[in-house]
């Protein structure tokens, strides 16, 4: 590229231009006019699909990409291993108790009742994922709706709804869940319900804040001036624009739900035998691992991995979707 320092002296330097692209002066100084509008606008700011952009950046973030792959592998394991394995989660074989790593065809050995740990682990992941997903969806639907309504209507409605939320979020969620589980029968659906009852406050607060911010924007105003109903404004104008923060919050919620399931299992309020979850396996492992360390180590590693993966994915998503937060 020609140097930027061009003095007046160089202006007269006719030689400077000769020989460019093999053209003579007459051709070089021929009028060509501006490029047409589409190529100007399109050339430098390629308009790509929003989600396509997010996906591309996620895949290019090395940590996020590795986590994504690991997550897919785990989900596949959770789905298929219990289906294809010769062992089942409840088959007890007392001749094969407390086997270690890779012994007698049991990849992660067996527990004290002779059940294959690998199958139980994969099944446990299945249960944990289902709990996490369901809990998060329920809290998403409730939290987003609550926050959306509160933020959209504002004023008195917002005031009352926020006071209610404040009171609820002041009650420690773990205590609430334990109380609930004492009343209801422990099990997968109860855990989901319990989490949904306490886990939506963060989401509601987030969505409300965003909606409060968005509803003063001109395009929302325009929509309201044109006579759109509140539900239409919330559903069509406001919620789609809160999708990115909701998505980040969701990803961050999942480890919370899985962790809660683990704590509940530890307190004896988790899923009931013969089902297994990551939390219940770790809890069982804690009791028996001194004789056979793998019964604690394998589920612990998987539990920690799942937590780590979702946290990392959430961080990456936040960096991508909300450049004003986190590291820039």
């Amino acid at each position: 590229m020609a140097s930027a320092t061009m003095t007046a002296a160089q202006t007269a330097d006719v030689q400077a231009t000769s020989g460019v692209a093999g053209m003579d002066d007459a051709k070089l100084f021929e009028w060509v006019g501006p490029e047409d509008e589409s190529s100007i606008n399109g050339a430098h700011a390629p308009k790509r699909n929003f989600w396509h952009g997010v996906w591309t950046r996620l895949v290019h973030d090395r940590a996020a990409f590795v986590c994504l792959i690991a997550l897919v592998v785990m989900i596949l394991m959770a789905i298929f291993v219990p289906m294809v394995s010769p062992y089942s989660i409840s088959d007890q074989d007392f001749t094969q108790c407390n086997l270690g790593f890779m012994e007698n065809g049991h990849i992660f050995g067996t527990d004290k009742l002779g059940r294959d740990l690998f199958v139980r682990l994969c099944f446990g992941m299945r249960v944990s994922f289902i709990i996490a997903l369901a809990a998060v969806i329920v809290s998403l639907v409730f939290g987003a709706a609550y926050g959306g309504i509160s933020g959209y209507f504002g004023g008195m409605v917002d005031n009352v709804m926020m006071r209610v939320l404040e009171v609820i979020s002041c009650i420690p969620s773990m205590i609430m869940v334990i109380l609930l589980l004492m009343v209801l029968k422990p099990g997968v659906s109860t855990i989901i319900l319990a989490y949904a009852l306490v886990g939506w406050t963060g989401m509601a607060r987030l969505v409300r804040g965003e909606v409060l911010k968005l509803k003063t924007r001109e395009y929302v105003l325009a929509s309201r001036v044109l006579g759109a109903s509140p539900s239409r404004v919330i559903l069509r104008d406001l919620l789609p624009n809160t999708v990115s923060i909701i998505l980040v919050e969701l990803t961050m919620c999942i480890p919370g739900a899985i962790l809660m399931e683990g704590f509940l299992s530890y307190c004896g309020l988790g899923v009931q035998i013969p089902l297994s979850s990551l939390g219940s396996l770790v809890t069982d492992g804690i009791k028996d691992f001194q004789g056979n360390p793998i019964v604690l180590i394998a589920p612990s590693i998987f539990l920690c991995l799942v937590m780590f993966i979702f946290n990392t994915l959430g961080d990456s998503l936040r960096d991508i979707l909300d450049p004003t937060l986190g590291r820039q």
Partner: protein
Amino acid sequence: MLKYIAKRFGYSILTLWVLITVTFFLMHLLPGDPFVGDKPLSDSVKAAIYARYGLDQPVYIQYLRYMQNVLHGDLGSSLIYSGQSVTNMISAAFPYSADLALRSLTFAIPTGMLIGIMAALHRGGPWDTTALVITALGVSIPSFVLASILQYYLGVVFSSWTLANWGFRAFPISGWGTPQQAILPCFILGFSNLAEIIRMTRSSLLEVSGQDYIRTAKAKGLSERKIVWRHILRNSLCPIITILGPLIASCLTGSFIIESIFNIPGVGKFMIMGVETSDYMVTAGSTIFYGVLIVGANFIVDMLYMVIDPNIRLYDDKEA
């Protein structure tokens, strides 16, 4: 400003009232009956016991009576350890819990803030790496997993080795009292909070560092040190203080796992015991007790926040 304080205080009271009410009614929905033991009780004995605990009254009478008692600091008496007052049990147990929480916070808060601040000021350096590693470990290892593993490998395996070689156990696996017994539980309880504090401090500092007024401060010709101390730290402190409330809460409520693993006779241990034996007076009592602590902590944090951020004072005066 007084209005702000009064308002916050009002919410705290309201929160506690909701908590007590919810707890009471949940306990009454409980399917388990603590008096259905191994021996079937005759109807007359049962009636006598019910009358003694006021269980024969209509629910709203029981509720009012319970409220009245709670207001007087009486959380009822244990159904299992007959005659034992829950208030007494908790007040005997609380010093242990408070000690545990306090020690772990005095470990976690300064350490976390230091690492977070250093990580934000020297991004990409060794402090930042440390912060990233601790945060990643802290968010992915549940405390009961960490506790069980450390209890075995440090408390059992390593301590037997020190006993054999140096003549003492490095980390006792249970109990409370000696400094050695405190190390593991405090570290584990503080560890997950440590991660949260580091994350919060670091991101808060980074966010403030990117603000326009920091550029203004730089344009004034202030040195890096003065910018950090005068402008960045104070403004990034506000969000950090807001997490102190939830943090104290998670320390207190999180401690019941640690207490039961390390066999520390704190409130959490009683609560778990109450859950296991369906002694709902104990469970309800410790729930309410935790609630008071947490709501109180949040209230104090709100007050602290007001001192630090002048804008809260000003705006609330105008609005209220």
